[in-house]
């Protein structure tokens, strides 16, 4: 339990730093800044107290907002992802996920990728809609969700295979 806490704490700090120092300044093609910290919600222990998870997500978003002067936009996006995660998990892994001995090990690659993809999609949609805060930028939002979403998904998939959570 203690090591989980330590690992997640370390992940939290490292992801904030990676996001604000590397990925926020990436500006690939002029506007694509992948929001890779979403992978925190993918790695977070599957069975956990939902309230604590939401508070952690809020804090993670808030730290990134604090650094990137976008107060509370990242917080809203991460909070929503954290709230929606159980639903997404039921959708991706089926009823299996309710069982006690469920873990990432007995899921297929496709299931995991869908799970990650949905997390990224929800996060992107909420983030860019709140950021623009008006429907007059609808096409701009769509363009950003689509392009940034794909880049984020690719990078997150690479991260998840590089730093596999199964080793815990």
């Amino acid at each position, binding site marked *: 339990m203690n090591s989980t806490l330590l690992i997640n704490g370390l992940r939290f700090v490292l992801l904030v730093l990676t996001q604000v120092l590397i990925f926020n300044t990436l500006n690939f093609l*002029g506007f*694509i800044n992948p929001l890779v910290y979403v992978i925190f919600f993918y790695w977070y222990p599957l069975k956990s107290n939902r309230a604590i998870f939401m508070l952690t997500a809020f804090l993670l978003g*808030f730290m990134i907002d604090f*650094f*990137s*002067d976008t107060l*509370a936009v990242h917080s809203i996006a991460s909070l929503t992802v954290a*709230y929606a995660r159980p639903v997404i998990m039921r959708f991706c892994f089926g009823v299996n996920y309710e069982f006690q001995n469920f873990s990432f090990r007995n899921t297929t690659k496709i299931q995991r990728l869908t799970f990650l993809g949905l997390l990224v999609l929800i996060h992107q949609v909420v983030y860019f809609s709140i950021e623009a805060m008006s429907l007059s930028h609808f096409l701009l939002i769509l363009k950003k969700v689509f392009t940034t979403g794909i880049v984020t998904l690719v990078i997150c998939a690479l991260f998840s295979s590089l730093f596999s959570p199964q080793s815990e």
Partner: protein
Amino acid sequence: MQRIINFILSYRNAFLYAFLMLICLVMTIRSHSYHQSKFFNSSKWVSGTIYGTAANISSYFSLREENQRLVTENEQLRRLLFNTAQNQPILLDSTQLDYEVISANVIKNSFSSPRNYLTIDRGENHGIATDMGVITTNGILGIVEHTSSNYATVLSVLNTKSRINAKIKNTDNFGSLEWDAQDYTTVQLKDIPRLVPLVVGDTIVTGAMSSIFPENIPIGVIKKYDLDTSKSFYHIDVELFNDMSNIKNVYLIINKNKKEILELQAKTEDE
């Protein structure tokens, strides 16, 4: 009562979500309509120090380019100095000057969101205060929004909240400079009446209406113009002189008469 408590307990996660969401929304809407949050912005010590360290390392990679830019600017200034009338004595008494200039380094820059802010490595300890103008060698950059003791955040011209008084060079037709969040090389100039003759390529400079920027600081050139929906004002696309994606050295402008101007304006409005 028991039932209410049970109800709340069974939906506690939804309540927590709604509660945190409410906090976030309030903060977002406040920062959209007014200034960014006073307490949570990147001018603070923690974020400033981290950005400062990162900028310290990464600035080495563009040293040559930056030197070249500064030499070019020096050249320009020398030319200006040698060609001004020699009989005009250069003012050495700094109390006589209207504007003071302080240099700073950008330690964090963003240009891809609709509300962009920069962070610079000068703060209250160096005499920086809210609402000072920030320019680069090429043109305007933004206005200081919040300061801490060693860092400050700058509201970039690439921010949908930014409104800067601008005019067409060598005329006195002024309008307001805004950004539509589309392209980081282009900003929009509004409220120029249709009587004004315009040509693509005309230079846009800052106007005399603001107490933040001195008059005639370059902004950009007209890229494209058409009439707005009311058919009485132009909607002008202005291509910025600054490359907003690549900014290192900036200058802050302190207007020494600002206090007097603001006091006078306040007094006039009161009457």
